[in-house]
């Protein structure tokens, strides 16, 4: 094992770490913004409306993220219309393509989490809200959504970790994220063990950080579920 190479390349790893964090955070924010309307549409009783978000969720959850990313990164150039329009500025960049693929993917998973949690809202709560004379919009705003966000937290924590791990795919399409950095170090010095183990340790650290963060957030927002102390 030759860890001198790794120490020499640490700046590259930290650069990759920053790209990974940026990619994951941006795609999670975009994904969450998309997921809420998709989940709301999917819970509608009207079958003809809810089939569209359900098909979206089914497609993005049923196919590999790698294929989705390739569809956008390699696939979009196939269409003349995209080639000639302003959109090409976006689709010719690997970073934008990866971001778009990740955001669409996590939106589907998050929407499914939100939909599942929303449908499990205790009927008594909604009934009570109706009895108080709340409108439909108010019921969503005051009763369903706040409790959904709380109860969805553990599942969402898993999704965040999934997104972090999925983001390594960005390294496949030339982006220098953590995995991309490890690939470069390996290609230059041929040190597969050291380079990939270092990247793996960085990911492990990030995973622990996310798990710890969600535990803290859950302790706050699930405080009403804990047994009383003292």
């Amino acid at each position, binding site marked *: 094992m030759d860890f001198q190479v790794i120490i020499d390349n640490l700046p590259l790893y930290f650069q990759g770490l920053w790209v990974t964090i940026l990619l994951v955070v941006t795609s999670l924010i975009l994904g969450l913004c998309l997921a809420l309307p998709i989940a709301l549409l999917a819970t509608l009783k009207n079958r003809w409306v809810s089939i569209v978000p359900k098909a979206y969720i*089914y497609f993005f959850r*049923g196919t*590999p993220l790698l294929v989705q990313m*390739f*569809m956008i990164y390699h*696939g*979009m150039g196939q269409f003349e219309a995209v080639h000639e329009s302003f959109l090409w500025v976006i689709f010719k960049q690997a970073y934008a393509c990866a971001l778009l693929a990740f955001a669409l993917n996590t939106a589907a998973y998050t929407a499914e989490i939100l939909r599942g949690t929303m449908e499990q809202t205790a009927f008594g709560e909604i009934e009570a809200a109706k009895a108080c004379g709340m409108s439909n919009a108010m019921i969503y705003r005051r009763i369903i959504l706040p409790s959904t966000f709380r109860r969805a937290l553990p599942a969402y924590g898993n999704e965040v970790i999934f997104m972090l791990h*999925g983001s390594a795919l960005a390294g496949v399409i030339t982006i220098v994220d953590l995995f991309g950095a490890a690939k470069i170090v390996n290609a230059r010095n041929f040190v597969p063990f050291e380079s990939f183990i270092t990247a793996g340790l960085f*990911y492990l650290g990030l*995973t622990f950080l996310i798990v710890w963060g969600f535990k803290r957030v859950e302790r706050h927002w699930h405080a009403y579920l804990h047994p009383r102390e003292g």
Partner: protein
Amino acid sequence: MSYVIDYLPLILRGMLLTVEVALLSLFISVVLGMIGALAKLSRSRLAQSVAGIYTTVIRGMPDLVLMTLIFFGGQILVNNIGEKLGLEYFDVSPFVAGVLTIGFIFGAYMTESFRGGILAVSTGEIEAGYAFGMTPIQVFLRITFPAMVRHALPGFGNNWLVLTKTTALVSVIGLQDMVYNAGLAGGSTRKPFTFYCVVAFLFLIITGVSDVGVRWMDRRYSVGVRKA
């Protein structure tokens, strides 16, 4: 659309490989998961901590990093060992690396599902088995295992679906699965979007069929359970 039909045999051959990789690594992961679950529930501190490190480390790292590590690193490792034993140069094929890595990764996820399943088996049944004079192995084979399947099945089904999608990553280390072949076909026809769509559709077929299979198993293993 005639070019899709021209290249369909190539893609379907890739699909066969995808299914092969998935099934073989599923087998490895089930074996590892069973060992891991038993180790986690055993009284030995050593076995517990080894299994604990295994599941934490594997589930904390991206599968792609682990796969490249085993593919590139495993090659060196095998040759170093081979050199010391005086063996000839041995090539680690992407197929072997892919199957081993995916099996190894999902063994960790299976460990957690199986552990939950075993914990859900009522202790009274296991105690009764011992009271009848069965050996620990007999108790496991006749009582714990059949009873745990029902509880472990949802987790198992989920893991299998994630596993099939993970097999797409073997294309990155050069294995000619359907994603790789779609890339070839898309490159030579300049219609990559169409071919990746075909692959996405084939993945949906695999997941759809698996869904039916898991549901069938669930019905079969819950025969003895009363439902409201």
